[in-house]
């Protein structure tokens, strides 16, 4: 840093004169000696004075340096000390330290100027742009020292009001230079003209350098402190966000702990009086979590939410706009809900949206008690939290999805098992059916012979008796022969009767496993039920005298048509209805009359792409141990000769295998039995097309 004064003044000339005279002096006469002695004495005094001055200067600079090193951040204190020392070393008057920010000059310190002397006027003249003729102003704008020996000698001096109120004539100002540019100036002012020497100017330059060091120190210190603060804030923020991440990883299925953690951290790091996490379902805003809310505010929220987002709160705006909503002072924001803010005692509010694929799924909002804007870093922090909340939500959603999928798969597996079990059962029935068919065929032929031969034998017995009638024999023999023939005929009748019974069983068995049946066609379900009811009813009346039962019909007109094998469905219905008649009749017989009224109800119901038929009787019901077996072939509870045990087994096959439907039974012993058949409307094409064997 170079600073050689060029401004006018006596100080510089006097110093140079002294040095010269000392070098050119020599010994001579007494007068000369005397002159020399005076000269030397003067020189001695001068150098003593200089030494004292230098000592004083050193003391001053070391005091300033001491202040700088003791309070590196308190640059104002340094300025004060500089102002004090500058004045002390430069004689009477007052001193000031000014700072320049590149545009305007400000007063940083002032010394020895009382309010009576016009300190107020001086203060009022700042801040100002550098003026044309002011010493401080010129020192700053030219980056060089400026010495005005007498302001009254300057035409149109820029600060007449100061001269008037303070009353000064000399003013010396040196710039404080950093990188060659003025960052301020030190000025000393005196009431007298020509008050300052060149030496004082040099001293002031040293002070200026020290002031710059102090400023620089303070700036660096501030910078370091700022950096440290920033770092520790960053660390704090990072710790907070990593804590949230920890919560996310600890709680992958539940977002609540994540929201709670976010709320807690957001409150703390944003100096907020509250923080809330909201969730948005695309229509309504839902409260999810909060921190520090008063009971009153919470109650208010519970009462009003969920609701559509609006502009009355920051969260609503964040959702609606899809970006950060910042309300630095809610009182200055007419759209903002003052009522809620006053209840919660906050003035400023900030909300960031939680965005997934650019669409809002929620928001985090915080509020501050004072009307102070939130910092950029706090917005960033809240944005990070919002991102984390989205991650947590997404995690939980994925987890739920995986779980749902797993459940679905488990259900599918269960269904598959059930289907497999049913298939195995059906397969058993089918192979049993095939076996039955084989046996039936094998039995049918010999059975035919039994029936045919016994039929012929009855005729032959008749012929035998007729032939015996022509033979002469005693009455006793005739009677004996006749009796034997009668017995034989009786036996043959029995053989025919039981043969026919066996034949009926075999016929049923063959039907059970027959190959192909009549064609399928769309059939009116209600008509089929009606027809079956009539057939069964008249059949039962013809078979058993005195049979009677109340028939109830509840046929859904919407039952409509279904593509079925009508003969087979009729067969099933006949079977179920006959069973119902049988059960009701038996209950009546067991009850010895009483006021029991046998009822059989048939109902149909439209199930969309399926149809339901129910046959219900109020008969004896089915005991649990029997219920397990009713669909098994050859299982019957009817007395020998009354049932083949194939009716329900065949019905099951027709409904389940042939028509791809289901048949279930609901019963309570002594009360009722209800069969429920359900099959698809496209039953014939869905089932196995009637190929049962």
């Amino acid at each position, binding site marked *: 840093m170079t600073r050689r004064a060029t401004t006018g003044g006596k100080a510089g000339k006097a110093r140079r004169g002294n040095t010269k005279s000392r070098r050119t002096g020599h010994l001579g006469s007494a007068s000369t000696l005397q002159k020399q002695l005076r000269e030397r004495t003067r020189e001695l005094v001068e150098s003593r004075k200089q030494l004292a001055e230098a000592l004083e200067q050193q003391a001053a600079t070391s005091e300033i340096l001491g202040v700088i090193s003791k309070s590196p951040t308190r640059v104002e204190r340094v300025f004060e000390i500089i102002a004090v020392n500058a004045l002390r070393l430069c004689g009477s008057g007052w001193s000031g330290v000014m700072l320049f920010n590149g545009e305007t000059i400000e007063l940083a310190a002032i010394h020895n100027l009382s309010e009576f002397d016009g300190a107020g006027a001086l203060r009022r003249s700042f801040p100002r742009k550098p003026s044309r003729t002011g010493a401080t102003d010129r020192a700053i704008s030219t980056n060089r020292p400026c010495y005005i020996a007498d302001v009254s000698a300057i035409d149109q001096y820029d600060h007449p009001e100061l001269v008037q109120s303070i009353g000064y004539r000399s003013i010396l100002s040196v710039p404080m230079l950093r990188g060659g540019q003025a960052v301020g100036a030190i000025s000393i002012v005196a009431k007298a003209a020509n008050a300052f020497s060149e030496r004082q100017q040099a001293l002031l330059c040293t002070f200026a350098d020290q002031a710059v060091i102090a400023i620089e120190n303070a700036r660096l210190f501030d910078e370091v402190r700022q950096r440290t603060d920033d770092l520790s804030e960053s660390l704090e923020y990072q710790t907070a966000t990593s804590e949230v991440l920890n919560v996310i990883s600890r709680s992958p299925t539940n977002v609540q702990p994540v929201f709670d953690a976010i709320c807690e951290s957001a409150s703390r790091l944003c100096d907020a009086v509250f923080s809330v996490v909201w969730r948005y379902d695309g229509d309504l805003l839902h409260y999810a979590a909060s921190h520090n809310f008063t009971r009153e505010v919470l109650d208010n929220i519970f009462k009003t939410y969920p609701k559509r987002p609006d502009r009355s709160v920051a969260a609503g705006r964040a959702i609606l706009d899809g970006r950060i909503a910042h309300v630095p002072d809610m009182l200055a924001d007419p759209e903002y809900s003052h009522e809620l803010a006053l209840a919660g005692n906050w003035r400023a509010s900030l909300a960031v949206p939680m965005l997934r694929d650019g669409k809002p799924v929620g928001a985090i909002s915080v509020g501050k008690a004072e009307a102070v804007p939130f910092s950029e870093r706090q917005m960033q922090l809240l944005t990070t939290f919002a991102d984390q909340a989205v991650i947590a939500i997404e995690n939980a959603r994925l987890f739920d999805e995986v779980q749902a999928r797993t459940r679905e798969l488990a259900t599918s597996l269960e269904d598959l098992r059930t289907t497999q079990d049913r298939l195995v059962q059906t397969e058993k029935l089918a192979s049993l059916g095939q076996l039955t068919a084989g046996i039936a065929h094998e039995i049918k032929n010999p059975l035919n012979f039994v029936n*045919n031969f016994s039929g012929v034998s009855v005729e032959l017995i008749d012929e035998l008796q007729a032939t015996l009638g022509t033979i002469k024999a005693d009455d006793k023999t005739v009677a004996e022969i006749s009796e034997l023939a009668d017995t034989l005929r009786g036996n043959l009748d029995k053989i025919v009767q039981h043969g026919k019974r066996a034949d009926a069983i075999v016929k049923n068995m063959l039907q059970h496993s027959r190959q192909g049946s009549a064609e399928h066609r769309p059939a009116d379900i209600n008509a089929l039920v009606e027809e079956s009811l009539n057939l069964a009813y008249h059949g039962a009346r013809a078979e058993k005298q005195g049979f009677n039962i109340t028939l109830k019909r509840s046929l859904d007109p919407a039952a409509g048509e279904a593509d079925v094998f009508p003969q087979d469905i009729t067969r099933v219905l006949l079977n179920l209805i006959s069973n119902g008649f049988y059960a009701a009749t038996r209950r009546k017989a067991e009850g010895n009359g009483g006021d029991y009224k046998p009822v059989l109800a048939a109902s149909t119901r439209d199930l969309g792409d399926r149809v339901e038929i129910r046959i219900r009787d109020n008969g004896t019901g089915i005991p649990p141990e029997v219920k397990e077996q009713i669909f098994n072939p050859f299982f019957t509870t009817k007395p020998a000769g009354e049932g083949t045990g194939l009716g329900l087994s065949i019905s099951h096959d027709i409904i389940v295998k042939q028509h791809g439907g289901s048949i279930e039974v609901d019963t309570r012993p002594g009360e009722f039995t209800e069969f429920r058949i359900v099959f698809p409307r496209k039953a014939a094409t869905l089932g196995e097309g009637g190929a049962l064997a």
Partner: protein
Amino acid sequence: MSLLVLVVDDEPDVEELFRQQFRRDLRAGRFIMEFARSGDMALQRIGEAEGVSIILILSDINMPGMTGLELLPRAKAARPDVSVIMITAYGDADTKQKALEGGAEGLLTKPIDFGALRSEIDMRVQRAA
């Protein structure tokens, strides 16, 4: 020339049953019955039928070796004028259709309705007379 009803069935007792059922007609000599235990034997008998007039062939379908349905077209080829009635335990539409396509006059299901069979034979006996 005697009238012949040829019965084809692998079951030996069929002969006994038929002879008992039609004992009066046979005793009266209205027609005679002969029994072949296989399709081959039946074809042989048809081929060497001299001095007899075959009025009807009754054939079981389910037989070891040549089945009734295989025998049918060959019998019809040998004697197109002779009626063939098939007998079967399976009265289903499919079997019936096959029998009729093969040239059978009709299909009787077991157990045989002898009343119906007797009227079939009677009709042909009268026609031949």
